[in-house]
């Protein structure tokens, strides 16, 4: 087995034995149960008769459900970002502090292998978490309301991409900063990107180029929010998007829970370039690092 896979395996095993992961799993299960309960109450309410007719017709219920699902998934994406940062910020820094890195790196293993192993282990965990948790949520929503989002797989792919962007940035910071510092900086970057996303939409809505440019730049530098837009788009029924755009309510574009379109292919390519560049920077930084 190659050294990278050995390190990746050890990283997954480490996570499986940490209370953080157990706690996260519990919170996720509770969150899914609560949203399931909420959706169930919603359908019950919608079908209650108001002057002889249901309060919401089928189309209205679908719109409300899809909106609420987006809000729930937005909360999930925050939990995901936080947990990714908490797992990745100590990935290198913690091993340097404990002396594990000193012992491991005197074995015939290259530093980039150590780094890639750590990244890969965390990436597998993150992707697994996204797939399991969102499948469960979609399943619960489907069972309770009969609603299925239009592109569940696209959603998982975009959300995983967003998490991997955060993971890669945090890994880079971890090669030079202590766990706490790296974690705080990475979360700051994530929040800035989120605000940049709002700036893009706001700039478009207000026809303000300055605001839009700052927002676009933020999205290029830290592409987590750009991918989140793709995730939102995957959850929106086509008819609803058409409705909003047709109504001419351009301000709606400033809503962080609405995306009028998915990210263009060029942007996705850029994200790929970004990831390779940031990982290479991490590798370079770690190779130069004295232990």
């Amino acid at each position, binding site marked *: *087995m190659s*050294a990278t896979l*050995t390190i990746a395996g*050890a990283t997954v*095993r*480490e996570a499986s*034995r*940490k209370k953080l992961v157990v706690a996260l799993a519990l919170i996720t299960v509770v969150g899914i149960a609560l949203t399931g309960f909420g959706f169930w109450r919603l359908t019950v309410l919608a079908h209650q008769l108001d002057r002889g007719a249901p309060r919401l017709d089928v189309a209205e219920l679908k719109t409300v459900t899809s909106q609420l699902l987006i809000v729930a998934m937005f909360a999930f994406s925050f939990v995901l970002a936080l947990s990714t940062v908490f797992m990745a910020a100590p990935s290198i820094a913690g091993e340097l502090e*404990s*002396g*594990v890195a*000193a*012992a*491991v*790196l*005197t*074995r*015939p*293993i*290259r530093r980039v292998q150590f780094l890639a192993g750590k990244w890969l282990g965390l990436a597998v965990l993150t992707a697994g978490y996204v797939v399991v948790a969102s499948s469960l949520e979609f399943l619960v929503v489907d069972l309770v309301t009969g609603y299925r989002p239009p592109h569940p797989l696209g959603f998982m792919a975009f959300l995983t991409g967003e998490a991997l962007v955060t993971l890669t940035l945090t890994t880079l910071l971890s090669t030079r900063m202590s766990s706490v510092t790296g974690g705080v900086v990475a979360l700051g970057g994530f929040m800035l990107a989120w605000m940049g996303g709002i700036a893009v939409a706001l700039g478009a809505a207000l026809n303000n180029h300055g605001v839009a440019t700052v927002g676009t730049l933020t999205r290029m530098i830290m592409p987590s929010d750009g991918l989140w837009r793709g995730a939102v788009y995957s959850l929106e029924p086509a008819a609803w998007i058409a409705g909003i755009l047709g109504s001419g309510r351009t301000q709606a574009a400033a809503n962080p829970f609405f995306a009028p379109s998915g990210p263009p292919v060029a942007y996705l390519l850029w994200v790929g370039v970004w990831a390779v560049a940031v990982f290479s920077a991490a590798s370079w930084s770690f190779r130069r690092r*004295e*232990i």
Partner: protein
Amino acid sequence: MPDASDAAIVTTGLTKTYGSVTAVAGLSMAVPRGEVFGFLGPNGAGKTTAVKLLLGLARPTSGSATVLGARAGDASARRRIGYLPELFRYQVWLTAYEVLVLHCRLARIPTSRTRAEVERALVTVGLAERAHDRVGTFSKGMQQRLGLGVALLGNPEVVFLDEPTSALDPVGRKDVRDIIRNLRDRGMTVFLNSHLLGEVEQVCDRVAVVHHGSVIASGQLDALLSDSGVRVRVDGLGAATGKLQRFGELHRDGDWISVDGVALETVPDLVAEIVALGGRVYAVEPRHQSLEDRFMELLGGES
């Protein structure tokens, strides 16, 4: 200095500075294969930094080093070395057994040999009974034993031990001394960082004393320690003591006078002289210089 061609470790002008601090200052030395080499020095002398340079964990500011014929830090050398770091806390979520298995994989020990290799290491360092306990539950000394076990996996040709007994009780220290002697008997080279002089004196074939990053004395232990000296317990000499100076350097310590640099055959002359001067002699002891005395003498001469 031994011949560099059959040396396990050779350094040439090895230097490492951190900002304005010179941790290692132009270290040039050779450690012969199959010997236990004691690298001695007070706190902050540069011992740990020197080992990190030899392992490629830190980069030299100037100078160079080879380990087993390869540039320090090269993978080909790293395949054949073991390392016990000075300060460490291995993965607390793993058991001792799992830590050792992980290192076997990283050291590319064939899977078929892993089990035997791990079990042997556990027995050697006395952790067999705690093999399946989490490292997080280990005492400091047990963690150090585990670290030693990790360093010995796969029969390395050179092991670097950075203060291997700092957390150990007297029994543990003796165990480690026995382990080190056993390694030497198996032909391993041991690079031992320490400031425990008694320990070094008992196991090392050769020592180098470092201070402020440079070697201030080195060589085989017996050559480094002068054993020509004598201690005399005497009274009634008074001011006449000074007349003994022609035998050697005098140190007074209560009733005891030590005379350094006296050859064995002149000891009877020294005693006769004391008696002639009116001194009453109660005891005469040959004096072997301890490493501690020599160490203090060297450091004293430096600063």
